[in-house]
């Protein structure tokens, strides 16, 4: 259909001025000659949640529908009855990590969300079922990595290791010569160092403070308020 038939007048697209500026895929203004797309990084995120039915499905569904890249997720109770801590290892661009934190904070059962600092205490547990033909050598490696033998039979040895991701990978490399038959890993879980709360404003249960644990004296009352503060920083 020609322009006349449609009836709209005005300079056609090629005759209009157009600014030279550009934005990258994150909507950030860039110098198109210089800046590349942002790299992704891993982030350890801790979320304090109300331990109600479906909370795990809500978190998992959020990650799935928004295509957030999740490496591992652990969940367990906290000192507060009815609360649980989710620890998530994610790999995303910086704006993606920001979105993950903000979208998590929007879920109603999520009380607060924090990102663990680099130096936070992190640990993972792994169970390994190893070919048992050379029990002495297996035992030597287990001792080297401060592991524990949980089961030893004529054909297999099952050991437990805890530690950082690197330590566990190293140990698994060492065991591989015998043949690793099965692996079960929990994925890393983490807490912040010192008396800094792991998620903003997080308080221990009253009975925990009664035996001498001092809660952080921060002023943030809820994770939502904190996540807004993060956003506005």
């Amino acid at each position, binding site marked *: 259909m020609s322009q006349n038939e449609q009836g*709209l007048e*005005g300079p056609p697209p090629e005759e209009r*001025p157009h600014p030279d500026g550009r*934005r*990258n895929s994150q909507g950030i*203004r860039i110098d198109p000659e210089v800046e590349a797309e942002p790299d992704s990084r891993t982030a350890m995120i801790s979320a304090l949640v109300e331990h109600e039915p479906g909370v795990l499905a809500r978190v998992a569904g959020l990650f799935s529908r928004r295509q957030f890249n999740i490496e591992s997720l652990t969940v367990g109770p906290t000192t507060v009855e009815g609360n649980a801590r989710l620890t998530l290892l994610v790999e995303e661009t910086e704006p993606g990590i920001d979105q993950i934190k903000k979208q998590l904070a929007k879920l109603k059962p999520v*009380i607060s969300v924090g990102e663990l600092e680099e130096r936070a205490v992190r640990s993972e547990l792994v169970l390994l079922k190893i070919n048992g033909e050379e029990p002495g050598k297996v035992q030597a490696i287990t001792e080297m990595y401060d592991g524990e033998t949980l089961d030893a039979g004529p054909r297999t040895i099952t050991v437990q290791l805890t530690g950082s991701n690197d330590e566990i990978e190293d140990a698994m490399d060492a065991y591989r010569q015998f043949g690793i038959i099965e692996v079960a890993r929990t994925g890393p879980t983490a807490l912040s160092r010192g008396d800094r709360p792991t998620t903003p404003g997080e308080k221990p249960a009253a009975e925990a403070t009664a035996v001498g644990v001092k809660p952080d004296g921060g002023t943030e009352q809820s994770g939502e308020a904190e996540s807004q503060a993060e956003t*506005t920083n």
Partner: protein
Amino acid sequence: MSDSAQTTADPEADTKTDADQQAATDSAPVTDGSSSIVRALENAGVEHAFGVQGGAIMPVYDALWDSDIEHVTMAHEQGASHAADAYGVVAGSPGIALATSGPGATNLVTGIADANMDSDAMVALTGQVPSDMVGSDAFQETDTTGVTMPITKHNWFANSADTIGDTVGQAFALAESGRPGPTLVDLPKDVSFEETDVEPGEPELPAGQDPPTTADPENVEAAARAIERAEKPLLLLGGGVIKAEATETTRAFARDHGIPVVTTMPGIGTFPEDDELCLSWAGMHGTGYANMAITHTDCLIGVGTRFDDRLTGGIDTFAPEAEVVHVDIDPAEISKNIHADYPCIGDAGTVLDQLTDEMDHDPDAREWREQCQTWKDEYPMDYPVDKNAPLRPEFIVEAFDEATADDTIVTSGVGQHQMWAAQYWEFSEPRTWVSSHGLGTMGYGLPATIGARFAADADQDVVCFDGDGSFLMTLQELSVAVRENLDITIAVLNNEYVGMVRQWQDAFFEGRHMASEYNWMPEFDKLAEAFGAQGWRVDNYDEVAPAIEEALDYDGPSVIDFHIDPEANVYPMVASGAPNGKFALAEDQL
């Protein structure tokens, strides 16, 4: 009998004036889960509910028997969810949709998803099979909270009659707080039947869900400096402005500081479109001048908008020279699609007042305002009228606009007709444009018109523009409009195509009209009369004005089947992912 009944029987208790006593005096006491649900709705001020009866929700319907809440029985649950959504848009408080378990609940899903995309406040209440049968694949069982988890702000599975009313109250409060959205409570039949005398209170937000109000002062200060030094400032007003009831504040902000305005489609009505500062709406089918302004601005102030892809076009070329001030109540919208240089998280009206307080002077934008006027002259919205040629749809929209008052509510389905209505109707008031924006739900029009009619003032006209394809998707709801004798006017812009698809096929698929041509459409005027509504058929320009006048005068549902130029297309158009500033004025420019 319940304790509260015994209390009210005590003459001394009558002297007490607290709310619970009042409620217990005014209506029968709560006796079971169902009456607690209905009482919670009454406490929330609910006047209307839209729904369809069915097995698992029957106890709740039975409890509505004695309530003042007016229930509108829809033909299909999808209609109930769209009606509730549109009711909420017009009324400014959550609409209520009711359905039974299984198919009833799944039929609501489209409307819930629609409300979620457009941040419309709505509460869905669904029946569920009895608790002890949940998980057994019982008759009409669906995991409704599972299905609706990604499309609600939050949903609940009610497990106790004692708390069920307060849960419904929470669902209501959460739906309308902060960034609004749909909520859902799934109601197992045994819990609805379960005895309780616990009177629910007023709707209360769940703990920790209070929305932000004022923005961080440091960010406001930085944003104010950015606006002051801008040479080409532009306000981008989204639907959030209307939801925040910030229309007046926003208008004053633009006028006081001399800042031109574009809106998003859901933001239609935030600013009068005949105002010199207003450039109408930007985006895929927005005006040329709005898209020029948004391309060339050096300071874009987005208020209550989520920078949807239909607005931005290609992200790389969106407002490429602009510092972005983003005012929004949802922190997650900040820098989600477009990076915000100055994020201001809070209530729209409150933050704009903060900005005004912080600004020492207005931006020097005289030349920019003149430039915007030049673009208005350069790219006028226009269409050819040839009285011997087939009817132009734009002419019909303008004829309706002329024949009705400024406060007329315009609803639409989804497709070409929706764009023509949005382009050629001159809007001036908030809550007068009711459409399916984010989800793009064909079939939204008629049920939304019914919901809007119940929320509108008695003297307000309600006009629906629909397409032939869109109308056909939910036209069974005409039976409801006739039964309720609703004074609504439906203009079907009939081109015997799924027109927007046909337009794209012509532009991008070498004209192959796969599954977009209807070689036979029902005669909608006669179909309307079969339903008991009034019908007209219009083929010529001369018939347009008289048919509109008769239809508007008719006290009941009327349907005008306008047979329009089947080749008419919607322009301007920014192709998907293209730069806004390169909008095409005709197909050969795509």
